[in-house]
């Protein structure tokens, strides 16, 4: 995939001026160094399906990673692709994998292990001193959309904040815990794979989805209802 690094050197101050500033005291130099460290760079590109079609409105995030031992914690703020699938991210120096999703059309959240193996191609970018343009993010296989309604058995009243766990039927370690809204509703894009579902809520017996595994593809919708019995 084409990943172009901007060759222009980015500086906060002109070189000639920086040279003159070198003659100034150390405090000033320290401040400049700090200013350089928090500089944001632009990463831009397009979100496409595997067939090369742009994905308007896709949600794009830059997932940070490091090479070697240890790890990275993040608070990621997604940006929305425009009507031609184009996006721009503002990022600090570092290594990122650019990921995208289009949950309204069944392209699930790639942040979850549950979505692994979809065939998506999420490019890695390393930002050092330049913007990065023309990044292509290729979504994986299209899954579907689950619409779940959790209610109380008998009264049929919705159960706010009920939990539904969607699990990979072939990999118990890959799952997502979903939280219902105030009306007991959940909508979630799932990958194209066999899934099991369990609903639970405080004060109620948990319930496994009785009709077995759920498999969705091609952006199909599936409506499910759980009737939980009070303990």
């Amino acid at each position: 995939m084409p990943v172009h690094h901007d060759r222009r050197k980015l500086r906060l101050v002109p070189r000639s001026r920086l040279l003159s500033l070198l003659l100034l005291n150390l405090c000033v130099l320290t401040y400049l160094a700090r200013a350089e460290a928090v500089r944001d760079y632009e990463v831009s590109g397009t979100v496409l399906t595997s067939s090369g079609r742009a994905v308007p409105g896709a949600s794009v995030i830059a997932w940070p990673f490091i090479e070697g031992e240890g790890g990275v914690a993040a608070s990621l703020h997604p940006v929305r692709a425009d009507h031609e699938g184009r996006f721009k991210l503002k990022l600090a120096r570092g290594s990122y994998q650019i990921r995208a999703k289009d949950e309204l059309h069944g392209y699930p959240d790639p942040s979850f292990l549950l979505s692994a193996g979809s065939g998506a191609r999420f490019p890695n970018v390393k930002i050092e001193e330049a913007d990065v343009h023309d990044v292509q993010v290729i979504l994986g296989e299209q899954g579907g959309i689950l619409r779940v309604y959790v209610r109380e058995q008998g009264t049929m009243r919705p159960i706010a904040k009920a939990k539904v766990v969607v699990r990979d039927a072939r990999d118990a370690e890959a799952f997502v815990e979903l939280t219902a809204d105030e009306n007991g509703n959940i909508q979630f894009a799932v990958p194209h794979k066999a899934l099991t579902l369990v609903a639970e809520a405080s004060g109620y017996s948990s319930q496994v989805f009785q009709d077995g595994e759920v498999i969705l593809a091609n952006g199909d919708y599936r409506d499910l209802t759980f009737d939980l019995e009070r303990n």
Partner: protein
Amino acid sequence: MGGLTVLLPGKESLSASHIVFDEVTGLAAMMKLFYRETDDKPRNHSLLAPMLALSQPDRGLGFPATTTLIPQIFLRNAGPDSTLVSLKVDWRNETKSGEFVLQPLTLASGAVTVVNVEDPQRSGQIPGDASWATVKLAYVGKKADLIPVAISYDKELRYGLQTPFSEAMSRMWAGGMWHVDSTHNTFIATGNGGSGPTTAEATLFYNGGKDKYRIEKKLAPGEQLWLDVGKVLRDQVVDSEGRTLPPDTMTGSYELRDLDHPYVGQLYEGKLVIDKTYGHAAYGCASCCQYSVPYFLVNPFAGPPDDDFGETLESTDSCGGLVANVTDGGYDWASSNTAIATLSSPTLHTVAPGSATGSVAIQLQHGRVLPNGECPAPVFGPTQPLAVGPYQVEPIDTASQGPAQCPSGSAGWVRNVTNQLQYQNGSAYAVDGLTVSDTLSIGSTNELGLHGQQTGQATTTGDGSFPDTYSVCSTDCPSSGYSNVLQQWTAYGVPLPHVNGVVYKCQSITIDGN
């Protein structure tokens, strides 16, 4: 003739009454007892007796036409030192009013004297047809060092009345019952005890309080508004709105109000209900109306920078129990930090994000009415915490969470939340399109071996919210270890006061304990 003192050395509570009666004439009179406070400090005292009946009684009193009263002022110095007493009599007849100043007199400690007001009236210094007077006296000493009583009885003690002295002046008086029929009449008086003019309003309520009769009058210092309710009914006197009292009305309540001084008034009051059958007159005291401790209506204040906000001060009026807007009484409006917000009038102007305290001074009649009837008017200083700009970012919803898709060789967790920019009280900072940024810094515990410092930006929607994904991937996962991370949010380029504590684990992420 003498005085009576009841001492309570242990400051016990005691209810005492003093009654004087004459079996022959049937005279009976309550003698007011004055409360003395040993811890009180000497100061200037001005006392008023608003309804001293003069020699020729008002026809409204219903006394026989031949009745002549002897107006007298009884004075006793109950204090430890001699004191100089100044006395004035503000008289009034049907058409005129005036002032007669008596010679100041010095009273030794324990001395008792009676000042005769009949003589100056007989000599013409007070007009003979003047029926009423307000007695004003002044002295320096502790409260109730001087015991005054103003009385007017005929020589047989058959007909007469007394008027109590009081230091009380108020913005509003809530009166009890007035009563007018063939055998009763009521006089209601209010006077201007201040040094400048004011507008007094007297309102008679009737028909169960549903209807009212209202008289408004501008009063010079010392001047009175006088209502002979029987005459108002009998002569169908119109009020300030052109209304009259229905002729068959017999009872009701009343209220007196200082229209020009809504917070600390300068009206004194008096009421007299006459039983014409027996020639007895009973004085009634109205209650001065009190405000509760004033407060800022919006407290604490939280708002965006560069905005104007009209402040409101409120207080509950003990008369009626309604919440009153007392903003106009505020003065010395101030902000503790004008770089954050200015408050030089009831308009608060927010300048820049940060915290400050707004304050104002206001004097209101408030608190327990003192034993001498005085209505205290302390100065209050309400304050208002000011929070300009947002205070924090907190998650308001978690839509999904679970094991993260991490680079090969590592594992972790991801949690999708809706974050919201908030004021300190947790309410939404509902500004659309505001860019907020955050910086994650590794804390003191880092068992997952986290590296680096992450930064990012987000844009708020109309309710101040925005989506956020918290994630962690580590080669140390799976494990039971955790790492503390500090999340500093910035809005308007200014760091928010609250820093989030985020705990990253291989199988959970908590934000500020949630």
